[in-house]
């Protein structure tokens, strides 16, 4: 058996191949969509603004995902968390998957894994845990879309309300979750305040766009509200005992 190291060149090469694949897929769909936008005479300024604002919007979550890589790297090394958090994964999936396997094997995750069989067991659990998401997507996508098309064809106004209700269901669940710590005392209100500040900044941007006609702000309102409310969290955290 070869000497095992979670940070070995071999695992880095595997990671590099997978990351290049993901990049290629993203670039493929980006180019395809831009070409189509040109074909149907969409406003290319809107397309450019979408790319610009999404880039800024993504920076904070991307650093948060990188933080997940840091967390997992303590016992898995860097390349496997790099793969897992770049393809399908999310730290909310990967950490429990690693912990569950470690518990099943009776080992601790407080230090770097040196047993290759433990490492591969964790890699398999992470892979098989998320595999249905990728296998079921191509199987279910057309069925789901056909259902939506039928609803919209039957009654277009209800179809629009149906779509809005889908968004509201998701937004309500995640907004409600922010309140899950309020019974823990004052520190539990920090997420609620961050939610409130983000909402206020967004509403202010909306007013500036509509009333003061600062139209460029429209595309950057979301990244601004995110970054300002996160900066606010850093500044006021001590007041909440965090």
């Amino acid at each position, binding site marked *: 058996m070869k000497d095992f190291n979670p940070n070995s060149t071999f695992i880095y090469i595997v990671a590099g191949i997978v990351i290049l694949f993901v990049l290629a897929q993203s670039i493929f769909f980006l180019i395809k969509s831009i070409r189509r936008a040109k074909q149907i005479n969409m406003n290319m300024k809107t397309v450019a603004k979408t790319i610009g604002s999404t880039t800024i919007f993504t920076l904070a979550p991307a650093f948060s995902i990188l933080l997940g890589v840091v967390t997992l790297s303590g016992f898995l090394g860097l390349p496997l968390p790099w793969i897992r958090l770049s393809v399908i994964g*999310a730290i909310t999936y990967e950490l429990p998957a690693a912990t569950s396997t470690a518990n099943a094997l009776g080992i601790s995750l407080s230090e770097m894994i040196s047993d290759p069989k433990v490492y591969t067991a964790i890699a398999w659990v992470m892979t098989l845990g998320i595999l249905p998401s990728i296998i079921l997507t191509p199987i279910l996508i057309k069925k789901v879309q056909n259902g939506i098309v039928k609803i919209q064809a039957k009654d277009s106004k209800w179809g629009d309300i149906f779509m809005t209700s889908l968004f509201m269901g998701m937004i309500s669940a995640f907004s409600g979750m922010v309140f899950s710590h309020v019974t823990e005392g004052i520190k539990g209100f920090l997420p609620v305040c961050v939610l409130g500040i983000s909402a206020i900044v967004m509403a202010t941007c909306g007013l500036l766009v509509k009333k003061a006609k600062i139209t460029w702000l429209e595309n950057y309102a979301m990244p601004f509200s995110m970054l300002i409310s996160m900066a606010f969290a850093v500044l006021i955290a001590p007041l909440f005992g965090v």
Partner: protein
Amino acid sequence: MSEIKSYEEYSKGIHKNGQFWIWSAACFILFVPISICLYYNAWPSAGAVLKGLLGVAPIYWTVGVIEIITFTPMLGTGGTYLSFVTGNVTALKVPAALNAMESAGVKSGSEEGEIISTIAIATASIVTTVVIAIGIFAFAALQPVLSSPVLKPAFDNILPALFGGLGVVYISKNWKVAIAPVTFMIILFIAVPSLASSVGILVPVGILISLGVARIMYKKNLL
């Protein structure tokens, strides 16, 4: 000059491309543990993998199915194929797509919506992949910054920062539909805080409530 394809033809093409990429992705994902097991000749026992899976699979697989059913209509065809390969669907791809469609003034389900959503998701995927790759290679320099206790409250509060802004846009425009599910979810999470770890399962609950309320109001001409 080639003739411009109809939306239906374009959509068929995207499905074909999407199927190719997503099945290839499934192979690439399986290639990771297989190649490591082969290279180190270190196959784990089936029992260890099964025990590990037992702790996470029931919830992951359920949430996986729920996510596909609930997010596919929001993400569009290209966006769905891309999101379910690149991951971080709820915390990044869906908000990125919704925000981009809202800013561009296009409707989800329309051709313009499909294009803007896919562009936003592809951009978000590329930026995330590049940021993580830079982070990996500059790990030593970045680790103290990322792990800094000063910045911890910012990273701990990404979701409130995201859904505050997104929520105000959608709730203000659809407040009649929003009141019931938002109130229900706030009360539910305050009453049972442990549900925060299974928020994915509560998304369809929120959808059922908002759909139910919207249907009643629609029938009574209140929307």
